[in-house]
């Protein structure tokens, strides 16, 4: 489990970008729920933490695909694949993320870059 930040440090309606590889963003919704998804949009290289949070959905800041924070599902193109979701725990006021073990759905430009790098 990765510690993120204190719950009180993340106001409702805001997101926190966790700089792990690949990055994860943690959202505190207006209803007080906390969700974690992959930060990189599945369409191109955009940070979903920069997006617009409305209810349980975040709208990508570049081309407006919306992702459901609960399931990772995407509503409409240009993104076609869901983002990964991660389990979130709040223990003693601290937010923790348990990174998913599934393969991420990174956009082709990033996936190509990662594949090109020496391991």
């Amino acid at each position, binding site marked *: 489990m990765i510690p993120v930040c204190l719950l009180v440090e993340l106001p409702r309606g805001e997101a926190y970008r966790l700089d792990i590889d690949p990055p994860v963003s943690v959202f505190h919704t207006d209803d007080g729920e906390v969700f974690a998804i992959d930060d990189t949009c599945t369409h191109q290289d*955009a940070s979903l933490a920069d997006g*617009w949070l409305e209810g349980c959905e975040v709208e990508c*800041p570049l081309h407006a695909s919306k992702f459901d924070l609960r399931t990772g599902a995407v509503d409409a193109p*240009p993104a*076609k694949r869901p983002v990964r979701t991660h389990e979130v725990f709040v223990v003693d006021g601290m937010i923790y993320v348990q990174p998913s073990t599934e393969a991420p759905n990174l956009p*082709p*430009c990033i996936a190509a870059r990662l594949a090109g790098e020496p391991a």
Partner: protein
Amino acid sequence: MRAVAVVGASLAGLSAARSLRKQGYDGRLVVIGDEPHRPYDRPPLSKEFLAGEIGEADLALEPDDEDLQAEWLLGARATGLDSAHRAVRLADGREVRADGIVIATGATARRLPGTDGLAGVHTLRTLDDARALRDELALGGRLVVIGGGFIGAEVASTAYALGLDVTVVEAAPTPLAGPLGETMGGVVSALHADHGVRLLCGVGVKGLSGETRVDAVLLEDGRTVPADIVVVGVGAHPCVEWLQGSGVVLDNGVKCGADGRTSLAAVVAVGDCASWYDPHVGVHRRVEHWTGARERPDAAVATLLSGGAAEPGAPRPPYFWSDQYGVKIQFAGHAAGADSVTVEQGAPGDRSFLAVYRRAGHPVAVLAMNQPRVFMRWRKQLAATPS
């Protein structure tokens, strides 16, 4: 309504087909498109696809598991709309009967007169155009882009990254002054000089030289710019010739109300071919941006299915993006009516800033370079407080 024909099988047409199903229409749905391809995304054609970073499969607009229960007539060009018989005529003689029609035939790239048939001269609108241009850029050499608009600038940026020697020729004194205003048009087009790409402004093109293949661009001031490849990026005109004589009123595209209705009942128009009435500015405007083609079909389909009774919601301010030289450019709203532009975040010199356009103190548009987060917040604010 028992049968709907969507004419044009690209972003606006696909979005309309989706809206129809989402809004509960369960009758016959026919999508007619003259390209042989399934709907694909155009913005990457001047960017990642042209650069060879993504392939054709990445351009698909449909997820693998999508099934709209539609009949797709691809490679089929509509040549007429018979409003009396409610039928779309196709080039091969077939007729598609429908009691509702969505016009989504988009736009085609404008050409330079007298340049057809000269090898090395390209326009960029379709996948086939992009394939042909990509193959030529791979050979390297000197590229001259005619037109410093968004598509021209993106092609210049992609070709520069591929190692070509690039010159951009723009007839106006400042590129992008129409959509962005003089000041910001100057700031954004300075990206060319940042990278050593030549930008020649305020000079028109007299013609091209070359026997079978282009070898130079001839400027009106007498200069000659040598060229191995020429891309003509001088805008697009709406594909509406097929509607001539149908009774659908045309005026720089299909003239539409603020809800997508045309002059004919049960016929709506969306996307780049449609000139919607914009209540904010009080004029008809043909908005040629991705987001409009994606979002407006929702309203137009509601109009179609309700027989015109649906109340259109307030339109969102037009939004578009452009990627040039690794810089993300985003714009929302209307620059035309602004009386001031102020930089509110970052600095233009750093190619990372946000500028707000105001009219009589009210924000009417916002432009950003590499500031997606602040831009998103401003765009939402513009949408919430229409000018």
